[in-house]
């Protein structure tokens, strides 16, 4: 099993190089790992998988009810939702089928609901149901006053985006994919039918190339002479509220999209928190992941109308992610046969849901273009550490603690993370290399105290476990 973060890249020529280890790139690498005999490299600019847009999304497993009917996105989200639900059950990725409510707060939004219900049907989703105010408030008693009705989408779920990306990467690496971190691609050329990527860690050669570079997909595309699309980073700021807020909300509360924009959502998380966001700000800087006073004030104003009591709860995290928006409505997934190259661009927030279907689609394009691959095999399932509150966490499992008391020694008290889990994350197939990486793998330091109690102890375990 190969994960590298330093030193020169291997001199070998890979069959396929996938650029970008976000949720989509990791899913593609995993799908390629199902073909025995292929030499696959997964090349990532940052120091961990899922470090770009994938780490900061709204963590929803969509049904695809509101996609553009007939689009590639609609098909891949629909297929991907089914695939990911099954995969999550196999790997222990936490998913909670809480359902979503599109809540109408004015006449215009109310008028939009039948159109959305109709669109859902055209997307093959038949379970959407209109709720009058009485039925809506019965389902969500803490909702702010003035809601006029809602469309209920029972199939929408919440999911852990970090575990999903990590499961793909883990399974890919265990089945022969080389993961190379800290390798931003600076140049790309083709010599004698082989792609030569110049990275910060030297050259990497591959016969075929998959561009899953997310926010930077258009830059890489241009390096290969393609001008298919331009990424306009769209910033989404989000607030995460403490677990005591979880009882306030039962469903994902989605805004009704209107001509005036998309509005913000409130959703429970699988960790037992409540999420409020995102903002939608079109930017030029692809690194502008900072939050702003205006953004946070906007979210609190909107959130206060939807769920007034939410604002009394403590905020445990503020973050911002950049969605890889393009000038096109649909995903930009293109094979360029003459170039042995596939672009996977414009994957927006639905990419998490669609990831496994995108991966199948992309590998299909590669084989159609002549990639000599054996038939797909089933991979040995991976079992991921559970971060979800709806499933037993290690501290709740007597048999696990009896076998290894380290799972009964809690370090991060707010999130109830044990020494055993931290030790495991530092020794995993794709190990935590930073405190942030450790947080995403275990939730250590992610709670209401943000390290007041445990920060120093977690850092000590991290330093100790890394050496």
């Amino acid at each position: 099993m190969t994960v590298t973060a330093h030193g020169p890249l291997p001199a070998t020529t890979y069959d396929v190089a996938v650029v970008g280890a976000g949720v989509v790139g990791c899913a593609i690498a995993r799908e390629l790992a199902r073909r025995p005999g292929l030499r696959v490299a997964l090349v990532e600019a940052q120091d961990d998988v899922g470090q770009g847009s994938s780490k900061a999304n709204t963590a929803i497993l969509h049904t695809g009810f509101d996609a553009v009917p007939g689009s590639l996105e609609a098909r891949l989200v629909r297929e991907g939702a089914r695939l990911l639900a099954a995969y999550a059950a196999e790997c222990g990725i936490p998913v909670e089928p809480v359902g979503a409510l599109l809540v109408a707060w004015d006449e215009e939004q109310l008028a939009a609901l039948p159109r959305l219900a109709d669109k859902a049907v055209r997307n093959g989703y038949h379970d959407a149901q209109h709720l009058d105010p009485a039925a809506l408030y019965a389902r969500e008693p803490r909702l702010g006053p003035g809601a006029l009705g809602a469309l209920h989408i029972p199939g929408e779920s919440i999911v852990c985006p970090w575990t999903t990306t990590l499961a793909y990467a883990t399974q890919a690496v265990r089945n022969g994919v080389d993961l190379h971190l800290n390798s931003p691609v600076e140049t790309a050329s083709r010599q004698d039918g082989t792609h030569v990527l110049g990275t910060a860690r030297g050259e990497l050669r591959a016969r075929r190339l998959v561009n899953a570079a997310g926010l930077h997909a258009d830059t890489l595309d241009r390096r290969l002479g393609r001008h298919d699309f331009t990424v306009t980073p769209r910033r989404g700021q989000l607030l995460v509220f403490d677990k005591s807020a979880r009882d306030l909300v039962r469903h994902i509360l989605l805004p009704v999209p209107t001509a005036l924009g998309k509005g913000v959502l409130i959703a429970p998380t699988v960790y037992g928190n409540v999420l409020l966001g995102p903002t939608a700000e079109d930017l030029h800087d692809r690194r502008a992941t900072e939050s702003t006073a205006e953004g946070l004030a906007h979210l609190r104003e909107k959130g206060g109308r939807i769920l007034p009591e939410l604002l009394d709860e403590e905020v445990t995290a503020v973050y911002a992610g950049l969605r890889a928006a393009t000038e096109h409505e649909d995903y930009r997934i293109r094979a360029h046969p003459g170039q042995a190259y596939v672009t996977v661009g414009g994957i927006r927030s639905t990419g998490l849901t669609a990831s496994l279907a995108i991966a199948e689609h992309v590998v299909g394009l590669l084989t159609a273009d002549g990639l000599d691959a054996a038939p797909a095999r089933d991979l040995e399932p991976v079992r991921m550490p559970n971060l979800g509150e709806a499933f037993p966490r290690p501290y709740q499992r007597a048999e696990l603690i009896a076998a290894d008391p380290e799972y009964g020694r809690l370090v991060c008290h707010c999130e109830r993370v044990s020494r055993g889990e931290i030790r495991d994350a530092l020794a995993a197939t794709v190990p935590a290399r930073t405190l942030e990486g450790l947080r995403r793998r275990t939730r250590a330091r992610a709670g209401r105290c943000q390290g007041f109690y445990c920060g120093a102890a977690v850092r000590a375990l991290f330093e100790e476990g890394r050496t």
Partner: protein
Amino acid sequence: MTAVRRVDVLVVGAGPAGLATAARLAAAGAGRVEVLDRERQAGGVPRHCAHGGYGTWLHPLTGPGYARLLLDAADRAGASVRTGVTALDWAGPLSLHTVGPHGPETIEARAVVLATGARERPRAARLVPGTRPAGVYTTGELQQSVHLYRQHIGARALVVGAEDVSYAAADTLRAAGVAVVAMVTELPRAQAAPARAADTRLRHRVPLLTGTSVTELVGRGRLSGVRVRHRDGRTATLACDTVVFTGDFVPDHELARRGGLSLDPGTRGPAVDGGLRTSRPGVFAAGSVLHAVESAATAAREGAYAGRTVRDWLATGGWPDGVPLLVDPPLRWIAPNRVVPADGGRGERGPYVLRTSVVVARPVLRVSQDDRLLHTERPRTRTAVPHRTLTLAAHWTGRVDPKGGPVRVALG
């Protein structure tokens, strides 16, 4: 099935309040007294306060020395202090689910004392915008990093806050070899003792920026600066690789809340009467979870007093009703925050503690019930300052009508 074990008194939290309660109860023969603490060492916050200021004039101690003293006293009295054990949730009105390296256990008691302490609100809870770099601390994390783990902190730090704990953070930074660039407070003055504030400003040459708020953290990977804005509109970016958010304490009230105990809207801790009785018969609370935060000595004194009222409960099973004790603005909160006439009858009970939200010179406290003036007091503090202790004596409680309306405290 989880094992169930019975004790007489279960104390949650082995800080000054919890240890003092346990020592008092065990010494008085209250039966099996058990203290749980989720940390690996008992002692609570003083464990990582390497500075002095604990103990008495005659026997000054550092925080860790004080923590050892309290632990020894509880041990000697015969209380069982168990560390590395977390009280997860309530299993019944007076029983708790716990977990530790030996696995899960349910502990049932005749009385439960919550002494779960308080924490500083971190950057996220304060909604400070910007990037999410490394180098962002609370005082609690900073002190543990420096004094318990000897970790590297940084080169230049900004301290947010100017109350006692902020000056303790500045001392810890200096002890760790970190230069303190400045201290900032939104208030017009420091909220620590004038001598201490002056010493830091003049001898250690740390500027205090008053009327100044933190508007943004800057830096990718590592903090590179903090943007601040003065009331008059001037802004600046202070170059630093470390920022410590100090003070702004909130009670660690999760267990109280999970148990459905009434919380006081002002303190956000469990509401208690002068006997430290919560809204549920048999459940008491003491220490900083009631008033985030007072000194360790106050917490310990209160813990000892809780030991006394717990014994009354074990002997008589009595649980008086009491009336609410409220404050008028600019007072923020008072603790305890319910009152029964007998509360002030014993000299052992400390005074009420209060906080103001604004600076008030020559304060006067007026206590009334249903427009009947019960008590007027001129506190010893010449000026009431936010984040600093203000006290109110308790001897007037005998005049409270237990059938009357809420008792109100006003600041004049």
